């Protein structure tokens, strides 16, 4: 709805304190209305029972059919779904927006468990490119290796790979945590903006290239630093956080996190000073 001038009458959202901004000039905004039931309905989500468990063999299913079947099972209340014979198929387990225990007995292809918000996923195999891309929340644990663009643009949640990962891990990351037990390829943390990446092994060239913000911890050798990525001293908070996170991720037992290298943005590429305050807020 377009509001071309300031309205005198308060909406219910404003009177509840949910919206306090005074609008001036030309603006366009859709107000939240708590009276409308659909505003409380999160489309495509289900209440599931973790104790209700089922196996799903996807050997002869196309990825769309398999995903539809997972959706059907969630709608029937199944909270623990075990996927048999994924056999490297692409785009399995994508777009799950509720709590769920999802277990893959095998390997996934590209774009596995992308755009998820909430499920706990265990993959007893390997994953291809762009695993968990755009993840909002939840936890994904991969027992073997992962391909390139691992955790691209994730906003939240924990993404754990116990093996090695390919290039551009955490590209465009906006939040959440990525933990890798093995090595990582070139351009790890490329253009990352928020969140943390933990690599227990070695990383390739151009680590943290053009990163805006966020933190990368590396346990092994670093091929080279990317543009504007700089080393920063490890603090006690870093060490405590790493210990806790690795313990929760069940990875790197007895790993000496104090010897890890911490990499952050040098912020020399930041040009926010040239912006107006409102633009600066948007840019950051």
């Amino acid at each position, binding site marked *: 709805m377009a509001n071309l001038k300031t309205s005198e009458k308060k909406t219910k959202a404003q009177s509840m304190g949910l919206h306090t901004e005074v609008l001036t000039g030309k603006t366009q905004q859709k107000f939240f209305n708590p009276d409308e039931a659909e505003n409380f309905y999160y489309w495509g989500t289900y209440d599931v029972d973790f104790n209700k468990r089922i196996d799903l063999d996807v050997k002869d299913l196309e990825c769309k059919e398999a995903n539809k079947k997972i959706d059907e099972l969630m709608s029937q209340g199944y909270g623990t779904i075990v996927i048999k014979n994924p*056999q*490297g*198929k*692409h785009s399995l387990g994508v777009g799950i927006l509720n709590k769920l225990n999802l277990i893959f007995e*095998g*390997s996934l*292809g*590209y774009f596995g468990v992308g755009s998820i918000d909430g499920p706990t996923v265990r993959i007893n*195999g*390997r994953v*291809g*490119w762009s695993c968990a891309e755009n993840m909002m929340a939840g936890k994904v644990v991969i027992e*073997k*290796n*992962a*391909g*390139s663009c691992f955790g691209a643009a994730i906003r939240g949640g924990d993404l754990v790979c116990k*093996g*090695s*990962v*390919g*290039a*551009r891990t955490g590209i465009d990351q906006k939040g959440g945590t990525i933990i890798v037990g093995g*090595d990582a*390829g*070139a*351009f790890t943390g490329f253009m990352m903006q928020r969140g943390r990446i933990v690599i227990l092994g070695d990383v*390739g*060239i151009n680590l943290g290239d053009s990163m805006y913000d966020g933190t990368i911890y590396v346990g092994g050798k670093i091929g080279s630093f990317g543009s504007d990525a700089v080393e920063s001293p490890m603090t006690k908070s870093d060490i405590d956080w790493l210990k806790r996170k690795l313990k929760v991720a069940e990875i790197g037992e007895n790993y000496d996190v104090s010897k890890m290298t911490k990499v952050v943005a040098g912020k020399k590429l930041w040009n926010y000073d040239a912006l107006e305050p409102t633009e600066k807020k948007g840019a950051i």
Partner: protein
Amino acid sequence: MCGIAGLIHRGKSSKVGHELQGMLQALKHRGEDSTGYALYGDTEGKNFIMRVKIGENVGEGSSSVAEDVSVYDERKKVVESCISEMGAKIIKADRVLPYSLRYEIEYNKDDLLNFSQKIESIEGVEILSMGKSLEVIKDLGNAKMVCDRYNLDKLVGTHAIGHARMATESGVDIKSAHPFWGYPFSDVSVVHNGQLTNYWNNRRILENKGMRFMSECDSELIAVYLAEKMRNGASLEEGMKDSLSGLDGVFTYFVATKDSLGMAKDTMAAKPLVLYESDDLVAMGSEEIAIRSLLPQEIDTYDPFDGEVKVWQI
């Protein structure tokens, strides 16, 4: 996009035509403008096998101009006359399709340059491959279509590489299809996924050194580049390592010789590759599903890192 796949059996032979067909068919969503196979068969190693194209497939979305079949007949006669002129003897001749010939020839010289130049001086004729075990078969359509058309299912050999092509840099035709023969080296073939951005600069340099290009497909540069390195005494692996800096762009490519199979990945690692290695088999492809067509059971695979070069022997 394009998809590539390759496999090598160590210490045994298998139906590599059938196996590669399965791998490439699993990658058909990456492109099915054309599909090509480079198969290394079990041969006595005495005679050369030459695959020759005397025309283009003008059906199935081809960008080629139609020619009368009588033109192909005339070219075939000239090809066979040239083979005799070069002192080679035709042991067996097959005409699989009107525009596709296969010859088994007895030729006692190792330098194939003069021989190839003579054959390719005939207008519209291109040698797709020449070697004592290599056979390059490429045509328009997906892997199954090409495999059925050329009866590749039963071909037994040790290793193979193949390519499913989505035409981006050049036309939909056989001359731009992969694999490319490492002209004029016996039994060398290359498939590539990616784009090379210094194609024309390198092509000019290599042409000035006497190397030949048959298409305007950037991928052909890799075959010619490696052939030129080997002509100057470099080993295959040395040539491949050199290509990481000599070739600009994004690429993952496979190269095969009579007894080896290699892979190289550019320093940006921008093109995918999944690899499976065991004591008796190495299989690799643009996507895991290609390997799964061969090994459906749970296996350990990995992505090679940026700038990696690997070579395996049979």
